């Protein structure tokens, strides 16, 4: 059976409920956050590019920042009936693909992950899975029926898949 798929772009988010999957492709230094309420089966995904909006003077699309993007995601999840204290968060990405790239501006992955953890903590949302850092990219799909996330990584030119 082919599941209905909602695609999340870069600096983008989506929510849905009970069926289908939400997918985002190629998280490098970007961070992907999935939130899922196992009771209502409402779930959502954020694909954020930069850590704090304030640091960049809130310029442009708010979904590209971890903190303001998370606010948007939470607001839309609440509309679908998700209860905040039941939400389970999973975070992915924040990798650093080229080890010789050491310009601080370009080492954004770590800061993205730190901000994601801090903001989730501030919202009192528990992180149940973390798969971050390293030198590889990740593609993630949230299954809205189960709340499970399929993670795909590349190793030696081949795709490795796991479900968390």
């Amino acid at each position: 059976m082919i599941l209905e798929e909602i695609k999340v772009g870069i600096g983008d988010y989506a929510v849905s409920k009970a069926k289908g999957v939400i997918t985002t492709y190629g998280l490098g230094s970007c961070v992907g956050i999935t939130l899922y309420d196992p009771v209502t089966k409402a779930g959502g995904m954020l694909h954020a590019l930069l850590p704090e909006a304030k640091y960049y003077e809130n310029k442009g699309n708010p979904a590209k920042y971890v903190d303001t993007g998370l606010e948007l995601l939470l607001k839309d999840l609440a509309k679908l009936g998700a209860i905040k204290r039941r939400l389970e968060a999973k975070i992915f990405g924040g990798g650093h693909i080229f080890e010789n790239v050491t310009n601080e501006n370009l080492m954004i992955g770590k800061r993205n992950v730190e901000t994601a953890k801090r903001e989730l903590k501030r919202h009192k949302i528990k992180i149940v899975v973390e798969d971050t850092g390293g030198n590889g990219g990740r593609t993630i799909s949230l299954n809205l029926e189960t709340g499970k996330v399929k993670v795909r990584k590349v190793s030696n030119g081949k795709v490795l898949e796991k479900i968390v």
Partner: protein
Amino acid sequence: MDYEEYLKNLGELEKSALLETFNIGASHAADALSRMINKPVSINVPNMKISAIKHLPAEVGEDIKVIVYVGLGGDFNSHAFFVTDLQDAMKVYDIMLGQEIGSTKDMDEMAKSAITEIGNILISAFANALSQFLGIVIEQTPPQLAIEFLPAVLDLAIADVAQYCDYVILIGTSISVDEIEFHENFFIVPHVEDMKKIINKLMEGL
């Protein structure tokens, strides 16, 4: 200065002047590669696209690619990527070694280092041509190679320019080596500020 407005309102004259400049770079890059592998190489007229960052994964595709990255600095801060399919990379390597196409079945360390060098030569020749033509200084980082999901690798460039703007400029090309068409692509993701300086310089010269 609102870079987003600037990019969206870029005139046809500005765009074609820029495209012509990148074309000069591309033809130098083709010559350099041709000398290296001793086969005819051509790089077609680059196209230039201004894309919303949000839609970039859909735009560039989500496949696994062999990617060589060189960071450009000085008067033209930008990120340059040479992107090729796994199969095409192995074909180019075969052509380079003068062996039958299909001989290489795995991207081993030798093949990786050869493709890194090809990417480096293409990007360097491109950057040198640009710097001579425009009379500007362009610095280059050493090349690095990854075999990865393409959008994951472009992330570092996108995160860098997204600080200023929600749009990126993508310059794509296709390359033929020894009359075989490859799906190689250059992606140049420049800082809008430096891009604007270059356009101004070009327009002054007209």
